[in-house]
């Protein structure tokens, strides 16, 4: 029942009419008990009506107040939002949808500040971003798509300020729809992310620089996680091992190791993780690596450790040391060869010394022996010439003496045969080659420090029959003598020369700039047991002479012009 004022008035009016018709209230009262009842009823109804009306008015008031209050709240909220928009540091642009692109109807101060444009310049214009004529980057395309498809979009573009500079603009555009669901407005939120962008660009540059370093590193670089699974495998590693990165990513690094390391690597990692004892990390080691094709090669391995997001990772730097190993081996074997030569030399020198001693002994012994035999034979002849039987016994005894002397001679002969170098050690050889080896041996050691050695070896010299080791002994002897001679010289000069002499024999000479020979020394130069210093390597001039003479050559010494001595020897070319 709608309790309107009309109803209420109507009821009151009816009451008054009733009074008028039916008289005064006393009349009404006296007239009829029903009537009073009805009047009472009417009064009560009036009261109720008024009460209801009062309530409804009260309610309406309340609603009104509510509505006003709500209205106020909304207004306050709107104001708040407005303030929020106004004070946001993000630029906010609201456009309508006039001509599809729309027109700017509002820009907040932040946007003004971001772009340098004032609101007056912007409002009523199409939004700057979407103005036709802009370069069609993918970002712009995305924005345009959002327009046509009426979907929200978020992208990053360069937004240009009024002064021509730009900033990196993180734009978020969303649509606002009316009660019919049609897009009525668009709201774009702009954030200046230049700082973050710059940082990102910087980070990206660093990342690319790092990647380039890793890619172009001359060492192979492999990173693994704590389980040994390969995380990264650079190009050099690919080349070294023969695997492509995709083949090894995720696989356990032990596949790159030969046995027994392969079986033990996992335990190496776990032991380190448990104990923290560094066996190779930060230390480096030479190990063997296994290629895809099954071959192995030596490497130098350095391992570093990093923690990323709380996870331990290990980086291995791999250097192929095959060439270094080879060089080391070659050096070692050259050194061994040199040592071998040295000991062979010493051995043969000793033999030669022995041989020379035996030869000297034999020669020295031969003299008295020959004299003895001559005397004995002469005596026997004298006794025989006297034709008398008395001499038979003496003759017999003389014969015995001669026989014994002969026996002694035989013994000496055999001794010399035993130690003498036979002619079978002779071969055709190149003297320059022989000399080079001998020089290397002779110049070894501190004795030859500071010595300038000149080698003038003629080319195209014919090969000659010689005992290589013996001739080298002679050369070493001569060079060492020269070294000794030049010990006190400021500039120590030794010169070695090969050539052909006038008789077309090989001529070898060793010259020094020492003090030279004095006459007394020069005369006894080649005699046995004459030298002052015995030396494991040297054999003395006497032996040298024996050797050269046995080769059919000559050996002699002459003064060096400018000071010093030249020792020369010849070797005949041969039959």
């Amino acid at each position: 029942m709608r309790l309107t004022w009309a109803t209420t008035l109507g009821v009151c009016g009816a009451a008054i009419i009733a009074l008028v018709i039916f008289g005064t209230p006393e009349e009404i009262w006296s007239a009829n008990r029903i009537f009073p009842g009805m009047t009472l009823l009417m009064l009560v109804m009036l009261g109720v009506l008024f009460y209801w009306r009062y309530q409804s008015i009260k309610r309406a008031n309340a609603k009104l107040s509510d509505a006003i209050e709500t209205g106020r709240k909304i207004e306050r909220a709107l104001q708040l939002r407005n303030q929020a928009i106004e004070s946001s540091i993000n630029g906010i642009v609201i456009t309508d949808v006039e001509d599809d692109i729309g027109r700017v109807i509002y820009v907040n101060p932040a946007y003004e500040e971001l772009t340098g444009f004032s609101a007056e310049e912007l409002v009523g214009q199409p939004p700057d971003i979407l103005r036709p004529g802009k370069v069609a980057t993918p970002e712009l395309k995305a924005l345009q798509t959002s327009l046509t498809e009426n979907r929200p979009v978020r992208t990053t573009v360069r937004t240009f300020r009024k002064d021509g500079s730009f900033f990196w603009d993180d734009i978020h555009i969303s649509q606002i729809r009316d009660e019919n669901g049609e897009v009525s407005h668009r709201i774009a939120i702009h954030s200046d992310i230049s700082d973050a962008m710059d940082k990102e660009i910087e980070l990206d540059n660093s990342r690319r620089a790092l990647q380039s370093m890793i890619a172009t590193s001359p060492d192979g670089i492999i990173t693994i996680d704590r389980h040994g699974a390969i995380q990264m495998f650079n190009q050099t590693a690919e080349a070294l091992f023969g695997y492509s990165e995709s083949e090894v990513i995720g696989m356990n690094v032990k596949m790159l190791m030969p046995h027994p390391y392969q079986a033990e690597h996992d335990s190496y990692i776990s032991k380190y993780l448990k104990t923290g004892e560094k066996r190779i990390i930060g230390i480096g080691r030479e190990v063997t690596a296994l290629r895809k094709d099954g071959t192995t090669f030596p490497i130098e391995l350095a391992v570093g450790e990093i923690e990323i997001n709380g996870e331990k990772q290990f980086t291995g730097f791999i250097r192929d040391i095959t060439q270094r190993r080879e060089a080391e081996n070659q050096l070692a074997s050259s050194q061994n060869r040199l040592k071998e030569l040295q000991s062979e030399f010493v051995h043969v020198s000793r033999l030669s010394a022995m041989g020379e001693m035996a030869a000297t002994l034999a020669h020295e012994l031969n003299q008295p022996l020959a004299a003895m035999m001559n005397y004995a034979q002469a005596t026997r002849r004298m006794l025989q010439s006297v034709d008398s039987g008395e001499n038979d016994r003496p003759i017999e005894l003389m014969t015995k003496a001669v026989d014994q002397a002969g026996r002694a001679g035989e013994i000496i002969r055999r001794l010399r045969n035993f130690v003498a170098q036979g002619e079978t050690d002779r071969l055709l050889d190149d003297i320059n080659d022989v000399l080079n080896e001998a020089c290397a041996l002779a110049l070894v050691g501190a004795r030859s420090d500071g010595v300038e050695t000149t080698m003038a070896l003629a080319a195209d010299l014919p090969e000659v029959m010689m005992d290589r080791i013996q001739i080298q002994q002679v050369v070493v002897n001569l060079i060492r003598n020269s070294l000794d001679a030049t010990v006190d010289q400021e500039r120590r000069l030794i010169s070695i020369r090969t050539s052909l002499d006038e008789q077309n024999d090989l001529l070898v000479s060793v010259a020094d700039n020492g003090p030279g020979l004095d006459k007394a020394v020069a005369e006894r130069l080649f005699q046995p047991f004459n030298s002052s210093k015995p030396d494991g390597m040297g054999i003395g001039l006497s032996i040298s002479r024996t050797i050269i003479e046995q080769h059919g050559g000559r050996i002699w010494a002459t003064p060096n012009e400018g000071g010093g001595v030249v020792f020369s020897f010849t070797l005949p070319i041969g039959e």
Partner: protein
Amino acid sequence: MSQEATVCVVDDDEAVRDSLQVLLETMGYRVNAYDSGVEFLENCALQEAGCVLVDVRMPKMSGLEVQQRLRTDRPELPVIIVTGHGDVPMAVQAMRSGAVDFIEKPFDEDMLLASVESAMSLARKSHEEDELKASIRTNIARLTPREREVFDRLIIGHANKVVARKLNCSPRTVEIHRARIMEKMAATSIAHLVRMALAADIEITDD
């Protein structure tokens, strides 16, 4: 040159030198001993020497050097090289340079004897040859110039007639010359004459 040629012993070792001299003397040779090559070359009357025994290993001048010198000074003198054991290369070189023999110490007397004797006979032979040569030359020198002309052509082998024609005289003249030549030269035949001419190393010319 005296009848008995001498053996020259050159050795720096006194005992060897002396004992060798003794031994050779018991073999009947005259021996002169020298203690060095220098002494030998300076003092030895090379004309009187029959052969030389020289030790190859000596200071100052080696046996080989002595031998080289003798080759220039007196090439017909036989040289025997005395070697110690093992000096074979040197000995071979000595032989190539013209030594007639080499002998090793200690000496076996038979080998020594054989060696020296063959050297001496060589010497003798060459001495004899020298003497023969000298006497032939003397004889040739005694021919008159005309006889010499005839002689030169006869030893080529020309007949008397040819010689006569070449020398522009009569064959009878040639015959007379020829008889005188034979007498002076003490030759028994033209062949003998030719041998003598060869032995004497005469220059033979033809015209």
